[in-house]
């Protein structure tokens, strides 16, 4: 579903991604782990072209993303993204946050969009907050709204960029539970995370990145359980 070939990304002289090859299958949940500065987030952001890649190719459903002829806005409607800092629109109510893109991009009628938004809010357990503003919500609630907002475009793929890193510890679980539910429903997901327990439990594949490379990749039991790789061992030794 996502095919990544020889992905390179530099910021000025700093090479952050030094050649990534990977394929994500449909309905697969892939967790990306690794020390900070290893290029995890950049890797994720390259997939929907929030970062322009320096070299390489990315295909989503066999459409080349970094082709000048490709309409990137169309690709992005199929790829939902959830950010570390939530990035809800503070001047809109929760329901307006969710309905904005379906109305503006999908040309959905306002009524239908609101019906869809309320369904999604039920799903993330926040229906009663529909008419509140984001700053009246806790961090965990905001992130669940952000997930609902991304889901409103009915994407085929969901990208999560450290979705729980900005949350107070007691709010992490409510967000992870929503993500777990999504995974069980068969959503294709790529998740950059520091939640090792979550990765081990939910992921179909785990990628360990370090220094701009994929150092190791495999089933979570292989990576967490009995890795042979020294760098993976050193990293997991520090975080587990």
């Amino acid at each position, binding site marked *: 579903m996502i095919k990544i070939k020889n992905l390179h990304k530099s910021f000025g002289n700093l090479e952050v991604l030094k050649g990534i090859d990977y394929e994500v299958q449909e309905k697969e949940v892939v967790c990306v782990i690794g020390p900070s500065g290893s290029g995890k987030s950049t890797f994720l952001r390259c997939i929907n072209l929030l970062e322009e890649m320096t070299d390489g190719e990315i295909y989503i459903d066999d459409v080349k993303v970094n082709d000048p002829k490709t309409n990137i*806005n169309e690709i*992005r409607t199929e790829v939902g993204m959830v*950010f570390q800092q939530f990035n809800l629109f503070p001047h809109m109510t929760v329901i307006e946050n969710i309905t904005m893109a379906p109305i*503006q991009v999908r040309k959905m009628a306002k009524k239908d969009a609101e019906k869809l938004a309320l369904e999604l809010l039920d799903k993330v357990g926040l229906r009663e907050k529909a*008419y*509140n503003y984001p*700053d009246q919500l806790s961090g965990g609630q905001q992130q669940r709204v952000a997930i609902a907002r991304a889901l409103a475009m009915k994407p085929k793929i969901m990208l999560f960029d450290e979705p729980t890193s900005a949350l107070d510890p007691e709010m992490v679980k409510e967000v992870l539970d929503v993500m777990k539910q999504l995974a069980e429903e068969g959503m294709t997901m790529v998740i950059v995370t520091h939640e090792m327990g979550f990765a081990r439990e939910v992921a179909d594949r785990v990628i360990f990145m370090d220094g701009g490379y994929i150092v190791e990749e495999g089933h979570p039991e292989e990576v967490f359980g009995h890795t042979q790789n020294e760098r993976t061992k050193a990293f997991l030794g520090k975080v587990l």
Partner: protein
Amino acid sequence: MNFFDLRWDIVWNYRDLFLRGIWVTVSLTICGYLGGLILGILLGLGKTSKSKWIYWPSKIYVDLFRGTPMLVQILIIHLAVIPSIFGQSYGYMVSGIAALILNSAAYVAEIIRAGIQSIDKGQMEAARSLGLTHSKAMVKVILPQAFRRMIPPLGNEFIALLKDSSLVTVIAANDILYASKVVVGAYQRFWEPYLVAAALYLILTYIVTKLVAYIEKRFSNHYNPRKRRSRKLDHPQNNDEGRTAV
């Protein structure tokens, strides 16, 4: 002159001139501000543009008009630019409004640019990640937020322009200051006419200050006209009825 021996009657005798002065000052300022706002928004957007063909002309314009005194600009526009282009002068009103528009546009442009750039980058990224085009994200997500932050500095700019409009007296516009100068010329007394001019400007700027404060409140998230009086009692967790009616 005895300080306590003020004669307000000499000003009162010229009240029509002062009333006309208020009218001229207010209309000059409003026309200049509205024109400046439109031109300034374009220039401000231009200054956030990635295209150098849009960025550089906008930047040069702003630097030019912010870097030179308004008094000089008024004189150049009235005595040089307009007569050279049109072959004649159209009077102080046209020259004055033109000068105020061109000058305030430069300041408004900076307010617009700063407002847009003050919005967190994540907002644009979130909007783009949902499939919105750059211009749609600008209109729906960035500008509404930036606009709120622009209200106080735009209000300041209006007040500054109101005061700076007094410079048009040099091209014989009969604004508030001009009325004072007529009285000065007639009676050779300085306190009364200039104090009255100062007081009139003060009253006008005070009204604008109040107006800006109201607009600022009106555009905040938590303004709800139906429940204005009980706003302080609203618990953030409560839905207030005004909003649930969709």
